C-alpha cells in the first residue's frame, strides 16, 4: 500500500526558528486527514511544504511512493495537489476569472491566453458551484467587491476546477457563516466520495472531527500524536487536546503505522 503523500523526517528552519522537527506524515489514498494544533505549532509550514511553497531544510517527500526532489508549487500541482490557503491567495483588484485561473492561465504554447474560454469556465463555476446568481456578478467583476464567504468560495472552487487528487484546506472555515461552513464540510465529504484525498486544517475541533478519517496533532513543530476518528470519541479527543496544550505530550496513547480504512 503506497501513500498518496509521505513526508519522512522533515525539518524546516527559518533562520533561528525551527518550525518543524523530524516530522513523519502520511496521507493515504482516499483519506481525509485533519491537522490540529495550536497557533504557531507548524501546521501551515507543514502544508506549505506539501504544496511546494517551502522547501524542507532536511527530510524527504514521496508522492505515490516515489521520491520527489526540489518540490515547487507548479511541480506539486502537476502531481495533483491543490490548495485553499488560509490567506486565500487572491488578488483583490483583479477580476473573478483572473483569480480562478491565477498562476495557470489557459494559454497556448506561445503563452497567448484563451480569455474567452476562461471567462466561460468561470461563468459555469460561479453559477453552478459558487452559487452566484446575482446578475451584478460576472466573470469580469473585480473580487474586491465580494464578501468574505464569497472570496473563500472563489478560493475553494478554484482548487476544485483543476481536478486535483489531493486537496489541502488551510483554515477554510475562517470567516464563513454557519450556512457556508456546512456547505464547506459537505464539500470535504464530497472529496472522499470522489475517491480523492484531503488535508484539512482547522482550529475548530468539531469541524475536523466531523470530516476527518484520521487526526494528526502537531505541537511545537513535532507530531505529538495521531488518532483514527473511528477509534476515539469527540470527548476523548478534546481531553487529549487539553492535555497536550498543557503538558506537551500524550501518555503514549497513540496509534502508529497503517491508518487505512
Amino acid at each position, binding site marked *: 500500500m503506497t501513500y498518496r503523500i509521505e513526508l519522512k523526517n522533515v525539518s524546516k528552519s527559518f533562520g533561528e526558528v525551527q518550525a518543524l522537527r523530524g516530522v513523519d506524515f502520511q496521507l493515504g489514498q482516499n483519506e481525509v486527514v485533519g491537522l490540529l494544533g495550536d497557533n504557531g505549532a507548524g501546521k501551515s509550514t507543514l502544508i506549505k511544504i506539501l504544496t511546494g511553497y517551502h522547501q524542507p531544510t532536511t527530510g524527504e517527500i514521496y508522492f505515490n511512493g516515489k521520491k520527489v526532489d526540489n518540490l515547487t508549487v507548479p511541480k506539486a500541482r502537476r502531481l495533483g495537489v491543490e490548495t485553499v490557503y488560509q490567506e486565500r491567495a487572491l*488578488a*483583490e483588484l483583479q477580476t473573478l476569472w483572473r483569480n480562478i485561473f491565477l498562476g495557470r492561465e489557459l494559454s497556448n504554447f506561445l*503563452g497567448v*491566453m484563451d480569455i474567452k474560454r476562461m471567462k466561460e469556465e468561470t461563468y*459555469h463555476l460561479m453559477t453552478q458551484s*459558487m452559487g452566484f446568481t446575482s446578475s451584478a456578478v460576472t466573470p469580469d467583476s473585480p473580487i474586491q467587491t465580494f464578501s468574505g464567504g464569497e472570496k473563500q468560495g472563489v478560493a475553494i472552487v478554484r482548487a476544485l476546477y483543476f481536478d486535483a487528487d489531493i486537496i489541502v484546506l488551510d483554515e477554510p472555515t475562517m470567516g464563513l457563516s454557519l450556512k457556508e461552513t456546512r456547505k464547506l464540510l459537505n464539500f470535504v465529504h464530497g472529496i472522499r466520495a470522489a475517491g480523492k484525498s484531503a488535508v484539512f486544517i482547522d482550529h475548530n475541533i468539531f469541524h475536523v472531527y466531523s470530516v476527518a478519517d484520521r487526526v494528526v496533532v502537531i505541537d511545537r513543530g513535532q507530531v505529538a500524536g495521531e488518532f483514527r476518528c473511528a477509534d476515539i470519541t469527540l470527548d476523548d479527543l478534546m481531553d487529549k487536546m487539553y492535555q497536550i496544550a498543557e503538558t506537551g505530550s500524550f501518555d503514549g496513547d497513540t496509534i502508529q503505522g497503517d491508518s487505512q480504512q
Partner: protein
Amino acid sequence: MSTMSEIEAVQPYEEHFSLAKFARANGTQLGILCVFILLWTIFIVSAPDTFLSPQIYYAFMSTIPFFAIMAMPLTVAVIAGEMDLSFTSIMAIGMVAFIMAHNATNSVLLAFVAALLTGLFAGFMNGVIVVQFGIPSLVATIGTQFFWRGAVLVLSEGRSGSLIYTENSLLHPILVGKIGGVFPMQMVWLLIITIGIWALLNRHRFGAHVYLIGDNENSARLMGVNAGRVRIIVFSLIGIISAFAGVVASLHVTYFWPSLGDGYLLRTLASVFLGGTSVFGGTGTILGTFIGSFIIGAIEAATVAIGLTGFWTQLIYGLIIVASVTMHSYLRRSLK
C-alpha cells in the same frame, strides 16, 4: 459546492454589453480621454490657426514618441509595483555602445544591435539587483541611473559627436524617416511598441502575472507565479526599449550628446501616472499611458501657441498632472 464531475452541460456564457459595466471596467481610460478631449478643445478654441492645421500634429508625432516609447514598458513596471528611474541613462549608454560598435566595425546595423544588447543588459542588471538582492527598485535604479550616466561620461570623455554617417544607411529612414515626406516613422514605431506591449499585457500569460504580482505578490507566489522572473523580464524590457528610444532620438537629430535622455525622466513618468496607472501597482492601462504622453507632449507647444510665454509650461504641467491623478484616485474609489 460540488465536485467537477457533477458539472454538466449548461447554457453558454454570453457577455452582455451594458454602458454602466463598460464605464466601470474602463473608468480610468474614459477619464483621461475626457481630459484629453477637454484640453484639445481648449487648445483649438484658443489657438485655432495652430491646432486646426496638420503641421502641429506632425510635429507632435515627431517628438512625442521619443519618450512615449519608453512610457509603455515603464507602465508595465509600475503595474508590477516597481519603478525605474534609470532608463534615461540607459538611452545614452546604448548610444555609446552604438558609436563604439560603429567605430570598431563600420556597420550601422551592428552598431544598432550593440545598442539594443547594451540596453537589454543594463535592464537585466536592474532586475537582478532588485530580485536577487531584494533592493527596492526606486533605490536600485537611482543608483544605476548615476552609474550608467557616469559610464557614458567616462567612455565618451564628455564629448558629443555627429552621427551624419547613419544617413546613408537603411536604418535612418526605417527609424526616423518620413512616410510621404510628412508622416514620421518614429510614430509608426510608437504604435508598434504600444500595440505589442498592450498585447503582452492583456493577451499573454506574462501580462496576467504582471498584474498579479503588482496586486498581491504573496498570492501570486502561493499560486506558483515566479515573481522574480517576471520582474527581471520587466526591467529587461525597459532596458532594451530605452536603448531603442535612444537610437531613435539620436538619429532624428543625427547627433549624439552625452546628456541624451536628460529631461525625459519626468515627462515619461508623468505620462504613466496621467494615464491612470496606480503607483500602488495592480492596475493600469497602456491606452491611458498613450493618451497621457500626448497630453504631456502637447502642453508645451500649446502654451506657446495660446499666447502664453514658455514660463507657463511647467505650471500648467503641474496643474494638469495633479488634477488628473486626483481624478483617477476618485474614479478608482467610486467605480468599485
